[in-house]
């Protein structure tokens, strides 16, 4: 038991820092650090830049083109990327569909899709939730009927993140209504250009277009795009949800966000003194920093143990719960730090090439919207209430 980084790990960090600084486009990191809107191209350029250095998929095993890094190495990488102002590597391809394809996909699917994920060719999105099926995912109704060598898909998916940019969507669909709900679900990969797919934006509470509804009307999907066996999709879905949670602690991002919060608190004035000198506000920062210090270690403990077991376990729910609470707490304090200047809403100021004069500090514009938006973190990816159910049942046996 030693929480200190080894000399090798320290050298690794130095290497990562150097490389990230070298390949991260300055315009992108300026957007990330300034809380500006990111375009599709910003995500893709970053993924391609990483891929060019062989770091496109740091969480994948080497045999599929990943780096095969340890949990500690991945943590260092995430921390350095966040601190440098790199955009998030979107999880839908890398962390969600890819592990499913690796574990259950055909050789053909693996050969075709995985390289296109890691090199940034394909943008993936998620087709899990439906309006009537959120926490109770297994009750989903979108239907796929086998007709010859393809499936015909009809139905509606929702809470689809950034699907407006997507090339592909992975979907849970009902292929049978016999037996238990869970037993009639299949896992399909669908080309977003297929006729019959409509993407309708859902505007979030910050006024931004981040999520969508996706409608399927007689969408023809080649049967070879079925992952694994028909009617076994629930197994793959649960496998995926386990993998999704592991990245969700977001320790690196939260450390960068905490850093930003402290900078703001040292800049904002409270009656001529830096806000940081206000003991009440400073104590709030201290409190969230304590939570994050603990989570950083818990995260490493859990991920290391999972690495030994080779599979994510229900302990990952702990990371989701604490990670999302901390993300929200930091976002709330960033907003709170602004005082009255949390009120102005200038969506135009989120454009990187906006030339207007800010209202209040130049970092102010995105912060309230970010707070509103981040209420989603305790809801998505299995709400924190659902995570607690998982822990109660799978760890505690209640």
């Amino acid at each position, binding site marked *: 038991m030693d929480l200190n980084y080894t000399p090798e790990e320290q050298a690794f960090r130095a290497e990562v820092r150097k490389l990230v600084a070298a390949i991260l486009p300055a315009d992108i990191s300026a957007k990330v650090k300034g809380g500006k809107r990111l375009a599709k191209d910003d995500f893709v350029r970053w993924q391609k830049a990483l891929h060019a250095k062989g770091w496109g998929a740091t969480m994948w095993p080497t045999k599929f083109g990943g780096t095969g890094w340890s949990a500690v190495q991945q943590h260092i990488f995430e921390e350095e990327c966040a601190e440098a102002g790199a955009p998030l590597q979107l999880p839908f391809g890398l962390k969600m569909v890819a592990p499913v394809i690796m574990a259950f996909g055909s050789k053909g699917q693996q050969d075709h899709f995985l390289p296109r994920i890691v090199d940034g060719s394909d943008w993936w999105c998620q087709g899990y*939730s439906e309006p*009537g*099926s*959120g*926490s*109770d995912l297994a*009750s989903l109704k979108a239907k796929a009927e086998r007709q010859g060598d393809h499936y015909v898909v009809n139905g509606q998916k*929702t*809470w689809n993140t950034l699907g407006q940019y997507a090339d592909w969507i992975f979907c849970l669909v009902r292929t049978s209504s016999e037996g238990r709900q869970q037993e009639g679900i299949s896992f399909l990969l669908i080309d977003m250009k297929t006729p019959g797919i409509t993407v309708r934006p*859902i*505007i*979030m*509470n910050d*006024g931004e277009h981040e*999520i969508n509804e996706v409608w399927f009307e007689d969408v023809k999907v080649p049967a070879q795009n079925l992952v694994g066996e028909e009617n076994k999709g629930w197994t793959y879905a649960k496998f995926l949800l386990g993998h999704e949670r592991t990245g969700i602690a977001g320790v690196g991002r939260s450390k960068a966000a905490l850093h930003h919060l402290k900078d703001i608190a040292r800049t*904002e*004035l*409270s*009656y*001529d003194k830096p*806000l940081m000198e206000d003991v*009440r*506000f400073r104590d*709030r920062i201290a409190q969230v920093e304590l939570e994050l210090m603990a989570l950083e270690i818990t995260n490493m403990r859990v991920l290391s143990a999972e690495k030994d077991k080779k599979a994510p376990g229900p302990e990952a729910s702990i990371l989701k719960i604490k990670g999302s609470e901390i993300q929200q707490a930091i976002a709330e304090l960033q*907003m*709170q730090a602004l*005082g*009255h*200047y*949390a*009120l*102005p*809403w*200038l969506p135009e100021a989120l454009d990187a090439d906006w030339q207007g004069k800010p*209202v*209040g500090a130049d970092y102010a514009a995105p912060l*309230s*919207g970010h*707070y*509103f*938006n981040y*209420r*989603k973190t*305790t*809801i*998505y990816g299995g*709400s*924190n*209430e659902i995570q*607690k159910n998982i822990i109660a049942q799978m760890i505690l046996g209640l």
Partner: protein
Amino acid sequence: MDFNYTDEQNALRDTLARFIAKDYGFEQRRALAKSDIGFSRDHWKQFAELGLTALPFAEDFGGLNGNAVDTMLVMEAFGRGLVLEPYLATVIVAGGLIRDAGSPAQQEAHLPSIASGKLMLALAHYERGARYKVSRVDTAAKADGGGWTLSGSKGVVLGGGAADKLLVSANTGKGPNGTGAISLFLVDSKAAGVSVRSYMTQDGGRAAEVRLDKVSVGADALLGPKDGALPAIERALDYGIAALCAEAVGIMAALNEATLEYLKTRKQFGQPIGRFQALQHRMVDMVIATEQARSMATLAAVKADAPDAAARRRALSAAKAYVGQQARFVGQQAVQLHGGMGVVDELNVSHYFKRLTMINITFGDTDYHLGLFSDMLLAA
């Protein structure tokens, strides 16, 4: 002690409820929020017809002599409707200042116009860097012949864009860093040297950055005693705080209703999610928080009129802090219990939540007022 509303107050409640139901639907409000001025002048006329703009003023000035509990009922209803019109800025804060600190001539000149809905006002007081500290003013007023010349910047002036006149606080003393003597001036918002940059706020409202560049006003622009306006400003802001507390309670009650309804109708795992005990208890906590907030909002209303300024300040900071804490909890949990539907623009939950959040920031946030209240314990 008396815990009942009068018949007149019950009638007022009914009237307000009808207005909100009829003229303040979700889509109507959304359209208003996106409009150029961000509210409806027709609504403002209706307010005048219903007597709302006349409520807190003396009959001599066309008012209705309403008390703080009447105002509380108005603001609670406005909370439920997420009303956008600058009632707080014009009637409660600025109107209250003229009523309490204005000369008879100034009262005569302006109160009837407010009461009849013809005049809109805004208090331009807070400045960037002062954060929530009320006594800190850098904007300077220099005596100039018989009148004054004002220069400085005011930040996040609620309703500043729509205001015909601004009540501008300025430093007429010599202290550095905004200390010294504070005076108040009535300034025409179209006067030379006044620039108003109006913008949308996170809750669909409007505020403005106001710059005063050597703005000349006459001697009659001074409102209240020279060098001694601070007590009146604090009192007006306390009226504002009481109003915000009542508005917050109205929103919390509306959010609780919406959430309870959602718990009863949204089905997952074959049953309404309101059957799950963890969610039931959360909902109970929201109800308790709202009842407790209602108690403190009532205290705020009653004490806003208290003759003893120290007792008034203590109660108003207590209420702002405590209602703010409960509002934060209820707002966040209403969103959480609505799941994805809680974070989208198309449902009113997110709009209630945003308004609650902004109420908490307005006129001093929870920590600021808890701090004032706490520091008063040293004197007690």
